[in-house]
């Protein structure tokens, strides 16, 4: 990094004057960010991007003349500009957001639902813009595993295999893209169930699950209370509910519950990790991935303390090196792994656990 820091130049695209004003206002508080222009629809956005070459674009979806998704295609393929989507908190908004991520948007931020939420949104937007400015857009556009998964196997744990192990994953900002690269590389015959907390609002999590399910060999679904996290299956905690696990004779069962936010989040990674540590001890694997804040670091520490495997995504592959950083700095992680190697590491690690389990069984 050069010592002289240039400001991140942002173009704000939204058909609502209020949103343009508000977003500009939220960003103007940060010394490293500069809103250089605004545009009221996709057509104007493309013209301005060509002229001004902004570092990051924030993009609304619903706009006249040329909508966000159409503009996004060109922004990504032609200009290679990192784009952050401004999404609405609706089912349609969630579906469009997933499409946008697929098309190469770096990340998304939900439109604020009240002035009380503005400071929070400002923080989120600022850190996502900073992360986006460092992102290689070309790499995002191309889905990693070419073509659809070979075969959908579905959960195979009912056959009695691997009921004793669990992999818990926690992610926040940058998570959807990271998961999109990571999960498809996990083979369906991995000998452990997978539970995931990705910080996301309601209705977004089911879209995320649907989206990942399309490209994964694993079955990916939004968790419902009582679902079993069997090998071959990944369960994603629904937005606005915490997810815990408990061991049952049939395998690992997830329990969903309401309650207060933990670390400002619901679902919280800490809640999941703690219950995983309690229930599975040495047979648990916790992976803390890209994201802002510190949610999950503590929980990862507890997995480690319980003898489990505590993994943190490495700094270079993180869109936002926040949660893993805290975990690493506090010594809660016993392994740091780049995203690209995460799947193979997980396979070998779970394999090692299987041997461990077998050796226990022999004794």
């Amino acid at each position, binding site marked *: 990094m050069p010592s002289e820091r240039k400001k991140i130049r942002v173009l704000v695209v939204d058909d*609502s*004057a*209020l949103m343009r004003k508000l977003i500009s206002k939220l960003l103007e*508080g940060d010394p490293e960010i500069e809103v250089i222009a605004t545009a009221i629809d996709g057509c104007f956005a493309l013209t301005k991007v060509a002229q001004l070459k902004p570092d990051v674009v924030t993009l609304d979806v619903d706009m006249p003349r040329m909508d966000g998704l159409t503009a996004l295609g060109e922004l990504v393929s032609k200009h290679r500009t990192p784009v952050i989507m401004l999404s609405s908190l609706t089912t349609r908004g969630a579906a469009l957001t997933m499409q946008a991520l697929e098309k190469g948007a770096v990340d998304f931020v939900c*439109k*604020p639902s*009240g002035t009380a939420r503005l*400071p929070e949104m400002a*923080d989120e937007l600022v850190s996502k813009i900073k992360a986006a400015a460092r992102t290689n857009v070309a790499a995002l556009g191309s889905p990693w595993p070419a073509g659809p998964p070979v075969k959908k196997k579905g959960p195979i744990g009912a056959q009695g295999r691997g009921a004793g192990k669990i992999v818990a994953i926690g992610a926040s900002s940058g998570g959807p893209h990271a998961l999109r690269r990571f999960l498809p590389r996990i083979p369906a015959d991995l000998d452990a169930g997978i539970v995931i907390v990705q910080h996301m609002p309601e209705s977004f999590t089911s879209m995320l699950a649907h989206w990942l399910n399309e490209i994964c060999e694993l079955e990916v679904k939004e968790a419902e209370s009582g679902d079993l996290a069997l090998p071959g299956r990944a369960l994603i905690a629904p937005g606005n509910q915490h997810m815990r696990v408990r061991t049952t004779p049939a395998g690992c069962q997830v329990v969903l519950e309401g309650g207060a936010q933990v670390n400002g989040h619901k679902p919280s990674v800490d809640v999941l990790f703690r219950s995983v540590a309690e229930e599975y001890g040495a047979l648990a694997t916790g992976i803390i991935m890209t994201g802002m804040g510190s949610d999950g670091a503590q929980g990862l520490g507890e997995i480690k303390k319980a003898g489990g495997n505590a993994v943190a995504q490495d700094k270079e592959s993180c869109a936002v090196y926040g949660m893993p950083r805290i975990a690493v700095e506090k010594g809660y992680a016993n392994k740091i792994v780049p995203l690209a190697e995460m799947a193979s590491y997980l396979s070998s690690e779970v394999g090692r656990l299987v041997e461990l389990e077998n050796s226990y069984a022999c004794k």
Partner: protein
Amino acid sequence: MDDLTKAELDQLLGVFRDQSLQILEDMGHDLLTLESSRDDAEAMTRLRRGAHTLKGDSACVDLEGVTQVAHKIEDVFDAVLTGQIAFDRRSVDVILKSLDAVKAAIDGAEVGDVPAETANEMVEALTAIQNRDEACLSTRSSDDQKSEPRQVAEASIGAESQAVSKHRRDYVRVETAKIDALLNLAGEMVIARSVIGQLGPEIEMALPRNEMVGRFSGASTHMGKLIAELQKSVLKMRMVTIDHVFRRFARPMRELAAERGKEVELQISGGETELDRALVDLLYEPLLHLLRNAVDHGLETSDVRRNFGKPAAGRIAIRAYHEGNHVVIEVSDDGRGIDPAALKERAIEAGAITLQDAGRMSDEDAAELVFIEGLSTAKRVTRLSGRGIGAAAVKAAIEQLRGSVVVKSEMGGGTCFTLRMPLTLAIIRALLFTAAGRLFALPLLAVSEIARTENSDIVHLDGIENYRLRDRFVSLVRPGVVLSFDRRKGGSGAGLRHEPSHFFVVVLATGDKKYGVVADELIGEQELVIKPLDSHWVQNEALAGASVLGDGRVVLIMDAEMVFRKAVKYERGKGNSREAYAI
């Protein structure tokens, strides 16, 4: 980021209000479009987007009620667009009502929220639309069909106005104030340029046969042309399409038609005609008044119309087009027309005309009596259009805008009001002259002719100065007197003290009246950028504004109509009769 300050929040709310009012207006327009052509997918998409933006924005500024209502409207259009429900008139009614609730909430002195109770009510009604299942819908829509002949409240929008809204061009939104500042600067440049222009001959005198003088005046002329172009371009920026006004009529007309139980077909054409932005808003009320009058007093009920062999639906047409430096707007109906005899009768009763006047008056002139305050042939007073004051108020408002209005009517065939408005309010072509030692200007458009005359040509009729113009007399107005420069000096109106023996009569025609303004000396004609007079002058309604000439002199621009009114008032104050003036 810290929490928003009060000022920041207010600013956001201001942006929210402006934008949302625009959205609401557009949505209302699109809804009515949909009513006449039900499967306009583009309009549907616009409506959904409008509701979507409203929802997101209102959530941002903590207006929960608005958010709820907007969200529900968005849901309804989602359902329509995905083919889950069909769109019918009932939906239009409910959605219009919801939009009204939102408008009422945010358009107050302070931006407010839709009260929870209203919001719930609206959400419920909207949910009912959204949840209608297809079976139930189809029976309902067949009911609709059956009741169609009895359904008499329909105001549809002409196809042309739809065409206008489809031809959207690229726009940049600029505050009007910024354009006005630019226009003002351009005006100042015109003045500065004319100073340079006037220097030309002086320099030539001072430096005879210097070749630089030629180059100087060449450059000066060129600059003059460029500045004129600049001014014209800026003026163009102030122009907006009259569609902005027209599209606002569909809604109230629909309501009025429903209330009166009349079938009304509103035809709008020429919506793409451009005119000064400042005029657009000011034209709304007068035009609405005329339209309401047309529904209330012009159109007959369907039964009556059938008896006359007319189509059951009354046609009200509003049309705009350019004519020279004017925008012409016609509001016409095919109703019963104005009854000249009845109008004359009432005018006599009211003392506005004499029996002899009435006898001389052609039917055409008689129709113009509608513009006299307090006269109306309508038998019924209605809530919306009132009675009698309508046309008079319209005329006053239009003339205030330096426009004119005339009416043509045919008994049984309909009525047509024709408004002629200046293209812009900012610049006028004016005749400059001096009177009472001061520099004045009159809009050239109002000047019908100029006569050179002398004192002996002046006749006094009923104590008022008149000038004989061929076969008729025109009353004379002395600007110095009317504007009260002279009055205190003791000249009691005759004002003949030390007038030059030769002077000029500028004959003005405003509306249907002719009168003369006495000018000592004519200066010439020139385009003037009108600047508003500061508060010291505002009381003087006879002045439309002022301008500064190239040599720095200030010229007062008279309002042709108001000067006359003021003169009448002045003479009346002296006890002279008004009739003497009204020729």
